[in-house]
């Protein structure tokens, strides 16, 4: 039997408390309605109505069933509505671009957080670099994105800037692991594994400029957006990487003295934001702070050279 449909008949009868009126409301004859209620009672093994010639009344079991039946019917209707919306192509969906290195726990927290805030709207995340997100936002293929700073694109509006300061990942037998804090200049002579420039052009250039400023010119750069591949290069002692502490045995994380690298992230959308962009932005900012170690960008410190007589001009 179609249990949901029979629960629907049951609810109409409970509202009318009259089989004739209920059948009329349902657009059917009374005998088939009475027959379906009896089949529901057989299915559930309980009498739901006391029937007399004069009136119809709910039994105790019937009274208990009413709220349960209402919830089941409503949820099935909502499901059908959603599917129907999807089929028509005007469903409540937010298409959001997220960075490739967001990490599984952060992505899960982002989706769960959005589901809690907007259970009626589906979040459709897409893993994309900043360059691809900018193009997709401008072409209308994304509603909102999480971009890496620096980025400049006409026609986009931006949310609050969040920042985190990556440390360095080293093989555990690297002599630099003896230090509690590593300076960028200590990395001189080593290779670097970094995200690809074509995915994150602004941040890539910014990171390498900071490295050069700090005395670290990598002898070679390997680009990958696969975290496992990057960790493999670190583990083998081939290269160092920048990022958050890794759980991989054999890989050691150290903070960089003076936090010379600042990796910034900011939500962005087209100048005319879609209806759920504000919800997504609020959830993303909270999740990135709680789960990804990011903080509000204060006044960024200006890198400053401490002059020394023997290393300055004309010494």
């Amino acid at each position, binding site marked *: 039997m179609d249990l949901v449909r029979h629960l629907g008949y049951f609810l109409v009868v409970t509202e009318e408390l009259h089989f004739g009126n209920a059948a009329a409301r349902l657009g059917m004859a009374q005998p088939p309605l009475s027959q379906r209620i009896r089949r529901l009672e057989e299915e559930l093994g309980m009498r739901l109505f006391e029937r007399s010639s004069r009136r119809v009344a709910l039994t105790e079991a019937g009274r208990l069933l009413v709220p349960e039946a209402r919830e089941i019917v409503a949820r099935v209707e909502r499901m059908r509505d959603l599917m129907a919306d999807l089929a028509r192509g005007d469903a409540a969906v937010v298409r959001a671009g997220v960075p490739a290195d967001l990490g599984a726990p952060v992505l899960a927290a982002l989706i769960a957080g959005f589901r809690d805030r907007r259970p009626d709207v589906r979040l459709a995340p897409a893993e994309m670099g900043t360059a691809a997100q900018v193009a997709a936002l401008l072409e209308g293929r994304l509603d909102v994105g999480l971009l890496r700073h620096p980025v400049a694109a006409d026609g986009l509006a931006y949310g609050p800037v969040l920042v985190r300061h990556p440390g360095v990942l080293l093989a555990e037998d690297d002599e630099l692991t003896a230090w*509690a804090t590593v300076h960028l*200049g200590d990395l001189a002579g080593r290779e670097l594994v970094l995200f690809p420039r074509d995915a994150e052009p602004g941040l890539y250039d910014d990171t390498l400029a900071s490295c050069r400023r700090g005395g670290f010119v990598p002898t070679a750069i390997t680009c990958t957006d696969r975290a496992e591949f990057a960790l493999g290069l670190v583990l083998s002692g081939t290269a160092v990487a920048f990022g958050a502490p890794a759980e991989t045995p054999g890989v050691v994380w150290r903070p960089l003295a003076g936090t010379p690298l600042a990796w910034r992230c900011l939500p962005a959308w087209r100048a005319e934001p879609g209806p759920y962009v504000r919800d997504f932005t609020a959830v993303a900012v909270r999740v990135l702070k709680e789960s990804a170690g990011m903080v509000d960008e204060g006044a960024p410190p200006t890198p400053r050279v*401490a002059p*020394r*007589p*023997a290393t300055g001009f004309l010494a």
Partner: protein
Amino acid sequence: MSPGVDPLERVFRGAGVTGWLHAVDVDGGREVGLRAGEPVVLASVFKLPLLLELHRQAERGLLDLAGLVRVPAEGRTRGGTGLAAMLDDATLSLRDLAYLMMTVSDNAAADALLARVGREAVNALLDRLGLTETRVVHDCRDMLTSLWEDAGVADQSDVTQACADPEVVARLRALDPARSNRSTPRDMTRLLAMIWRDEAAGAASCAAIRRLMALQVWPHRLASGFPFDDVAVSGKTGTLPTLRNEVGVVEYPDGGRYAVAVFTRSLSTAQNQPRADAAIGAAARVAIDQLRTHI
């Protein structure tokens, strides 16, 4: 070297020196030490308390830092840098003499200033600051003269040759803390911290002293441990046969500032020992890294 050895000891032994060290967070009071309370020979590091007394006397109106002083060539204390190496009479201000004394460790400038300030005035200041392990018992000239006498030679150039001999070095009074200008690593970091916290004198005087220490020219000792543009290193060296010292303050871009005093003595009498010079910076970085570990 066994892995259980103190990392500071490992740095010193690897450079063929015995080391005495104290490092302290200027603002937090955390400290790291190695033989930090033992007496050490200051050598030219004594010029730092001399500079402080010079400024305190100026604060009291006893002298004018901009006032000109004539330093004749005749009878000047000799040395390898500054007026001590120059050939002609010079006239310059007290504070420019102080500049030469601190930035190139000019012995002639130091003795001219000590003559003006008074050796006992420096010791009285050290007493008032509670730096009772620190004493100035002679000026540069008397210290150099003791070298000639102990080495049994006639002048400075012969001292340089004689002090390559370990037997000669072994009998130099100038290398004995009991008979030379002396301190302890702990006393020196206390002095540095007071200067960096504006407690050793008025704020303007402390700032002037910090300026001169940042202008010291030598890159091979304390500064060599911090070859980073965003780290500021200020210091004063001291050198005698087999002795290599430097005291100073290292300032990190995050605002952390650390007073460190490093004194070394090498087994070798060779005068060119870049590894021993660099060990001062390397040991200082090890100590400061430990201070920063538990921030």
